[in-house]
């Protein structure tokens, strides 16, 4: 087919497979440059923060500037542990998926800080409406790994009775709402939930996450309109990991303006942050949570990050972007950066890190063995077949009772 000049503008990434990875077009402002206004600032006064980049960890891995949340080393080590666990778990689950142990998997490699630091900055009682790439929240909130795996392999102990694709977790006890495969639906739901928290006079807030590609959905607009109209205590996170399966962020209008800036049009507070900087994510979430809890409304946070691996086990990134791009990402790796920060503080070292990785990998392997003892998708036992007719309604009506009989269970 002959290549012709397009008759209308179709955005394309700077590089494609076969090209040399190149992020020279991305401006990375120095850490510590962004000002930190008080959380009770007028929303429009955060306009600059929608186009700059809040960064705390500098190139020497030192925490600098007004946004430094000044966390204890214990908290940082805990964050590091959750991020390492998230990565180790993802890597192991991918291998198991390749061995046919589960139907599908989605890693969050490179984006661990976005979920882990946010979860740690929120109260455990705050309600989260994540997308499918914030499994880090579950680790940060202490969910049992065996339970997570039982869900992913849809066995007899899957708390979702085998009804959801792997990684589409729900954990009511941990205030973790159901993950939808239909994108952005949770964004306006989180606003409604947050309004109900106010209605009940509780200090609980809600937080939701979507990808930058999903901001194209109407529900993004709906969520921001609701949040703005009712001044809801909610944090609306846009995880800009550059890629929506195979389409780069320019296909969601990302070349025109930042995703955070969209919030300004709705009169919401806006922050654009280095999503690979644990301290920046923590500080921004803490700021937005304080603002929400004070009744000052929602914040749109764009976490600028990079999806270092495939979208899911169903796609191969070498088909749409250069190999090795993740290593060239100008904002580095969130785990490596926090690790080096702690080492620089004299609070961590390579030996302890290696031991942590080993310990967590062993924990994951041991947990998987235990999970498998409750069954696997292929060999069972699964939740009982008749359970497919349960929970459609509180009580099955005559149609479901008859259909269950028709199935012979």
């Amino acid at each position: 087919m002959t290549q012709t000049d397009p008759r209308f503008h179709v955005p394309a990434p700077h590089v494609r497979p076969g090209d040399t990875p190149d992020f020279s077009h991305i401006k990375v402002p120095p850490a510590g440059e962004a000002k930190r206004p008080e959380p009770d600032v007028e929303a429009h006064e955060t306009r600059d923060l929608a186009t700059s980049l809040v960064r705390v960890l500098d190139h020497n891995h030192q925490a600098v500037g007004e946004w430094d949340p000044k966390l204890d080393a214990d908290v940082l080590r805990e964050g590091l542990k959750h991020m390492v666990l998230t990565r180790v778990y993802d890597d192991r689950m991918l291998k198991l998926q390749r061995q046919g142990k589960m139907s599908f998997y989605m890693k969050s490699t490179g984006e661990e800080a976005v979920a882990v630091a946010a979860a740690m900055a929120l109260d455990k009682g705050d309600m989260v409406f994540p997308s499918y790439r914030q499994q880090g929240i579950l680790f940060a909130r202490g969910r049992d790994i065996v339970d997570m795996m039982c869900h992913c392999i849809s066995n007899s102990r899957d708390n979702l009775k085998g009804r959801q694709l792997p990684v589409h977790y729900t954990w009511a006890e941990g205030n973790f709402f159901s993950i939808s495969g239909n994108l952005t639906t949770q964004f306006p739901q989180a606003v409604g939930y947050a309004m109900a928290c106010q209605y009940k006079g509780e200090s609980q807030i809600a937080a939701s996450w979507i990808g930058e590609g999903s901001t194209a959905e109407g529900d993004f607009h709906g969520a921001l309109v609701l949040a703005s109209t009712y001044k809801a205590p909610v944090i609306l996170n846009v995880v800009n990991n550059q890629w929506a399966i195979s389409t780069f962020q320019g296909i969601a209008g990302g070349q025109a303006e930042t995703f955070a800036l969209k919030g300004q049009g709705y009169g919401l507070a806006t922050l654009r942050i280095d999503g690979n900087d644990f301290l920046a994510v923590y500080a921004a979430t803490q700021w937005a949570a304080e603002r929400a809890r004070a009744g000052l409304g929602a914040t749109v946070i764009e976490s600028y990050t990079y999806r270092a691996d495939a979208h899911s086990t169903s796609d191969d990134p070498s088909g749409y972007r250069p190999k090795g791009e993740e290593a060239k990402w100008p904002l580095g790796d969130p785990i490596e950066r926090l690790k080096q920060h702690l080492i620089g503080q004299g609070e961590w070292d390579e030996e302890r890190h290696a031991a942590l990785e080993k310990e967590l990998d062993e924990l994951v392997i041991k947990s998987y063995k235990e999970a498998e003892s409750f069954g696997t998708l292929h060999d069972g036992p699964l939740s009982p077949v008749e359970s497919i007719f349960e929970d459609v309604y509180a009580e099955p009506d005559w149609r479901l009772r008859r259909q269950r009989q028709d199935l012979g269970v």
Partner: protein
Amino acid sequence: MAKMNMIQSLNSALDNAMEKDPNVISFGEDAGYFGGVFRVTAGLQEKYGLDRSFDAPINEAAITAMAIGMAAKGLKPVAEIQFADYIFPAIDQIVSELSRIRYRTAGQFTTPVVVRTPCGGGIRGGQTHSMSPEAFFTQVPGIQVIMPSNPYDAKGLLIAAIESPDPVVFFEPKRLYNGPFDGDPTKALETWAKHEKGEVPEGHYSLPIGKAEVVREGNDVTIIAYGTLVHVALAAVEREGIDAEIIDLKTLVPYDIETIAASVNKTGRCIVSQEAPRTSGFAAELAAQIQEECFYALEAPIARVTGWDTPYPHAHEWAYFPGPQRFINAIREVLEA
């Protein structure tokens, strides 16, 4: 007991439900301060405050999503979609979210939202203010679908819907808001004042979801209708002077198969009806189920009275509307078969 039209009885249902349970809240486009374009939510904001009856932005998906989030936190939201024709922007939130939260979380979260929406034609509404899209929602596991035909049922069923542990899409046939309608647009408007179902208790009561009612007993043919067509079928039977049994279905999901089967097994003939277009309408589901249940009792093919497979026209509204003559034609066809 009081005389109420359907607007007043629905308003009374909301009033009773909100009075009884502080978790019940109502919102929608123009549904707060102004009380709704059809006045169903009139006075609620004044009585219960801004945070229990409020105006929502013109975004049906966001309205539904807000209701889902609120219900997940334990509220009982009643969301108004101004016209059933406008419900389609909310379809993803209803079909992929609202209906399945209980299922996909294995009961960890439930979202018992009521989506109220005025439906149906006969008010010169043109194609975007006349639809009866109920069948779309009957295809969605997890949703209950209700369409009452009179003030008494409307109130009892709306209260039942609000108190149900499962989500409901509640269709209000707007041609019936102010009076019963027998399908003859040339007649002067009747009011509910003289109708027995216009007698409505002022206090709280509910009617069972999933229960149909035989509104006219007879032996020659069973006519199944819901919403506006209940009154049209009654008028047609009176005009034709036949001994027909008429069932007001009231609930489409889950529909009352026992009442239907008992009647068709008795009469041996059946007409199913809907105002919506013919193809893949709810009447088709009824016809299929009836032939499964009652095949050996049937003495004639089941006939359908429906709208045409066209958009709802404006100028030729009455050529579209399945009026009494279309019922009479079907009755003759079924009785002569």
